């Protein structure tokens, strides 16, 4: 019995494969449709599963929380100010242990034995950080109490990869000395390979940590007052999240009593911050959750379109085989036999499409992780789960969308089918089935198209914003000047002077200057304002520059003068201000000769010039109040602060396409061989990188939309071709009773366009939610400086109109050939069946 059934299945399978071989167009289209749909869905699912769903790779991860000093309504985060972190550490009772780290990585210079230095990513953590996570060094020890105190012994923990790569996996590395920022550090230990931490070193740029340094948190730290830290904590046994939050709420009031200064920190709704705790898993993924889930939604939409397309193809194919089914039925095949035959064909398609899709997803995941502008946390392995997921989608989609349309054929009367139906112009059922599938397909594609159109429009809008500098022939080189040697102004200025002096002499170099905080890069910010007007004081960006900076960058000097060589440590302290600062502080009259103050007790700085605005962090941000001071007049204290936090950049204006890389590296090496070039690129690349996230999402959505449009075109072409075949006799009759060929062409085109327009209308209504969704995705990656993400988005109606136009053109193109074929039908041929 079982043997007979198996034989029948094998026979059906052989027959199905033969049928598929005989219809290569259908087979290739169906397999590719499935493969691309399943491939894209599985790729995003792999990332979502690895990032959002997998537990953190730490012991008892459900006991770990991120603790933030944050505003209400914020996403899960663990941001802390130095003061708030210190307070919580000392006063909490809910946490078994607490770990504090600096917010993000920073570049440090690692010198190797051969006199060569290069930049690596460092993260500062306190000694409670790893014990809280439950991670122990694989070699050596954690930081000691002394090492974590301000001015304590200098020590580092190496990452497994750095230890393998740069120290050849030396098992005796512990207690050896490494040179970081020209200072000696003792290697305390090596962290295990399982620990890989991705963090942000700059807005939107992910980096992996190479070393950990002790935080040495102190009130004297320049960033102590700001929210520059993160906190993780492990809950005590028996403490639940509700109890934690109750304690944190009580501690918020106590903290404000102790440090009333923080009550000045309010958001646009005038709300103050409070202590909040979230599960660490939520904190880790909160930055990418919206975009990953949106991407997953988008690929599911693509998969749905692929499935609908498959359904349209299968419907047409099954109806074409109605006569064959009727003959089989008349010869004794039961419905079960017929269904098994159809299932064999669907299964063959599902397995081929699923396997190809899985292979495509394996290729796509690394590309996705490499090109994604967001810091995707390390993924846990989940290969088998993804394979199972791919197979499940393949089978479910193929069986549901492939077999349901065919089921109606099985329900038909065999005699009726054998007589050829005796009808003209397909049955109402099959026409409606195909039409409905097509309308849904067009509607879903329309949503993807409008999302793509909106994101692309927003990207182009952002890219068209002037950065405020002339990027052509402008090369920038960044160095990190950290460590004791560069904690004073003299040494820093000597280094900068040497580099500039050598670069100036290089052929092809027109101008050269240095700045701490390039446009579209981070820089120092202060509280301050015009002297004698405390009411006008507020947040301002501060940049140290060398003479000729504005000319080098192509920033126009609107009034007054540029910083000059004469503006040195012995002359009157001066600043150049941005036009936004001038307009805000001295509206209606010249700012030249006025004075500004950085903080209450700081000396006044005379304004000598006003320059055009530049964007300090993002093109989406409104120009900020910005002041530029000469490097030569920066105090030792301030120089230590800015060197400790931000890289110094050399800007080189070239006369043409000159290769300056070697000259820059040589000039910097000659000035200090222990300072590596951390970044050497063009200003245009810096600008392009600042719009990497909108570009990534617009290209991704564009890819999805193009695929959806292609599938819709294939579906519409298939449906119209099928309907023309079904309506051949009807068209013959129409021609016989007087229709001309133009009218037949219009008949088919009109039908296709009506379907497209109906789907388009439904899709357009669904697309009304797209701007909000696109805005929430971009808001995670584009710094708008409080402007609101809606100002960045391109016009919603325009996006809809463009999407609708694209869909109509695609519908016309897809149905023109079948319509032309219909118009070419010879009535004598069509009516020959008489």
């Amino acid at each position, binding site marked *: 019995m079982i043997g007979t059934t198996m034989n029948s299945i094998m026979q059906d399978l052989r027959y199905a494969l033969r049928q598929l071989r005989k219809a290569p167009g259908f087979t290739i289209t169906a397999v590719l449709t499935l493969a691309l749909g399943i491939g894209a869905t599985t790729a995003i699912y792999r990332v979502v599963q690895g990032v959002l769903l997998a537990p953190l790779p730490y012991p008892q991860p459900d006991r770990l929380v991120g603790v933030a000093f944050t505003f209400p309504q914020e996403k899960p985060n663990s941001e802390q100010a130095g003061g708030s972190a210190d307070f919580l550490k000392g006063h909490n009772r809910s946490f078994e242990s607490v770990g504090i780290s600096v917010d993000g990585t920073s570049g440090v210079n690692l010198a190797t034995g051969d006199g060569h230095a290069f930049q690596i990513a460092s993260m500062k953590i306190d000694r409670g950080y790893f014990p809280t996570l439950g991670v122990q060094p694989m070699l050596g020890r954690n930081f000691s109490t002394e090492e974590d105190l301000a001015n304590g012994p200098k020590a580092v923990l190496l990452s497994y990869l750095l230890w393998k790569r740069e120290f050849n996996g030396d098992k005796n590395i512990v207690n050896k000395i490494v040179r970081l920022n020209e200072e000696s550090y003792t290697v305390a230990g090596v962290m295990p390979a399982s620990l890989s931490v991705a963090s942000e070193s700059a807005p939107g740029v992910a980096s992996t940590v190479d070393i950990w340094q002790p935080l040495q948190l102190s009130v004297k730290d320049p960033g102590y007052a700001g929210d520059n830290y993160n906190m993780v904590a492990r809950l005590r046994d028996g403490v639940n999240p509700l109890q934690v939050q109750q304690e944190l709420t009580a501690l918020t009031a106590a903290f404000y009593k102790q440090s009333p200064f923080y009550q000045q920190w309010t958001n646009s709704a005038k709300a103050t911050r409070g202590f909040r705790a979230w599960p660490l898993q939520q904190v880790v993924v909160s930055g990418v959750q919206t975009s990953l889930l949106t991407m997953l939604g988008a690929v599911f939409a693509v998969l749905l379109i692929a499935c609908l397309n498959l359904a349209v193809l299968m419907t047409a194919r099954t109806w074409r085989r109605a006569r064959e089914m009727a003959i089989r039925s008349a010869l004794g095949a039961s419905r079960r036999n017929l269904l098994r035959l159809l299932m064999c064909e669907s299964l063959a398609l599902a397995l081929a499409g699923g396997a190809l899709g899985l292979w495509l997803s394996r290729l796509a995941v690394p590309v996705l992780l490499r090109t994604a502008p967001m810091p995707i946390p390390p993924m846990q392995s989940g290969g088998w789960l993804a394979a199972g997921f791919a197979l499940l989608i393949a089978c479910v989609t193929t069986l549901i969308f492939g077999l349901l349309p065919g089921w109606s054929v099985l329900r038909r009367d065999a005699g009726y089918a054998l007589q050829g139906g005796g009808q003209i112009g397909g049955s109402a059922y099959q026409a409606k089935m195909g039409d409905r599938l097509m309308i849904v397909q067009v509607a879903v594609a329309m949503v993807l198209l409008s999302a793509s159109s909106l994101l692309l429009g927003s990207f182009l809008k952002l890219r068209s914003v002037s950065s405020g500098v002339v990027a052509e022939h402008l090369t920038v080189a960044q160095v990190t000047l950290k460590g004791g040697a560069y904690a004073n102004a003299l040494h820093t200025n000597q280094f900068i002077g040497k580099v500039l002096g050598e670069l100036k002499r290089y052929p092809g170099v027109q101008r050269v200057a240095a700045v701490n905080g390039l446009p579209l890069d981070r820089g120092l910010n202060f509280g301050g304002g015009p002297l004698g007007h405390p009411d006008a004081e507020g947040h301002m960006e501060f940049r140290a520059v060398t003479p000729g900076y504005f000319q080098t960058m192509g920033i126009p000097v609107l009034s007054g003068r540029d910083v000059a060589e004469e503006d040195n440590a012995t002359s009157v302290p001066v600043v150049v201000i941005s036009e936004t600062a001038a307009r805000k502080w001295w509206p209606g009259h010249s700012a030249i000769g006025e004075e500004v103050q950085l903080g209450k007790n700081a000396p006044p700085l005379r304004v000598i010039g006003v320059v055009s605005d530049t964007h300090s962090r993002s093109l989406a941000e409104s120009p900020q109040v910005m002041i530029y001071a000469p490097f030569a007049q920066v105090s030792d204290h301030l120089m230590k602060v800015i060197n400790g936090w931000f890289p110094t950049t050399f800007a080189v204006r070239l006369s043409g396409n000159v290769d300056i890389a070697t000259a820059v590296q040589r000039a910097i090496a000659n000035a200090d061989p222990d300072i590596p070039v951390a970044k050497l690129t063009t200003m245009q690349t810096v600008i392009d990188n600042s719009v990497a996230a909108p570009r990534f999402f617009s290209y991704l959505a564009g890819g999805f939309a193009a695929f959806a449009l292609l599938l819709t075109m294939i579906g519409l072409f298939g449906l119209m071709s099928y309907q023309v075949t079904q309506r051949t006799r009807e068209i013959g009759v129409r021609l016989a009773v*007087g229709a*001309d060929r133009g009218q037949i062409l219009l008949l088919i085109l009109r039908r296709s366009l009506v379907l497209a327009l109906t789907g388009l209308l439904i899709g357009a209504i669904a697309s009304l939610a797209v701007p909000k969704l696109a805005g929430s995705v971009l808001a995670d990656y584009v710094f708008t400086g409080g402007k609101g993400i809606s100002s960045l988005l391109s016009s919603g109606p325009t996006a809809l109109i463009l999407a609708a136009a694209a869909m109509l053109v695609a519908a016309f193109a897809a149905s023109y050939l079948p319509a032309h074929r219909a118009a070419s039908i010879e*009535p*004598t041929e069509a009516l020959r069946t*008489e």
Partner: protein
Amino acid sequence: MVELNNLERSYKTGHMETWVLRRINLRISEGEFVTVMGPSGAGKSSLMNVLAMLDDQWRGEFMFDDAAVHTMNRKQRADLARRRIGMVFQSYHLLDDLTVAENIDLPLSYKDIPRPERQAMVADTLDRFNIVGKKDLFPSQLSGGQQQLVGIARAVIHKPALLLADEPTGNLQSA
């Protein structure tokens, strides 16, 4: 009214040329009722297609009243046929998705006739064929004889000069 001189029609099958009509000479006067008879494959339907101007792959002379059909291009022939010829088919060839009234209106819909005038002509025809009560039914709801009646009504609604019927009773069961 219709005059065929040395009309010939053949089909190519591979390298072979199969003749279905050879040296046909035929005259049909106005008001005349002509029956063409012959065995299966004799070329009756092919001749009908030529006369209906559905086929333009023939050689010879074809005069329709004073118009030389053989000198006309495809569009001119289609235009002439639309105005002057009506056709009844063996398998009725009603469109299943259209009602009886809409099927009868079909030839008029391809002419520049205002809608109210078309509706009046359809109403007249329905009345003349005594099928007013069936005007909103679909072909599948009619018997074979009723379907053929609709087919004939559709063929004559625009008052053609030449009415062609290709085995009009072939699909009807004999009583």
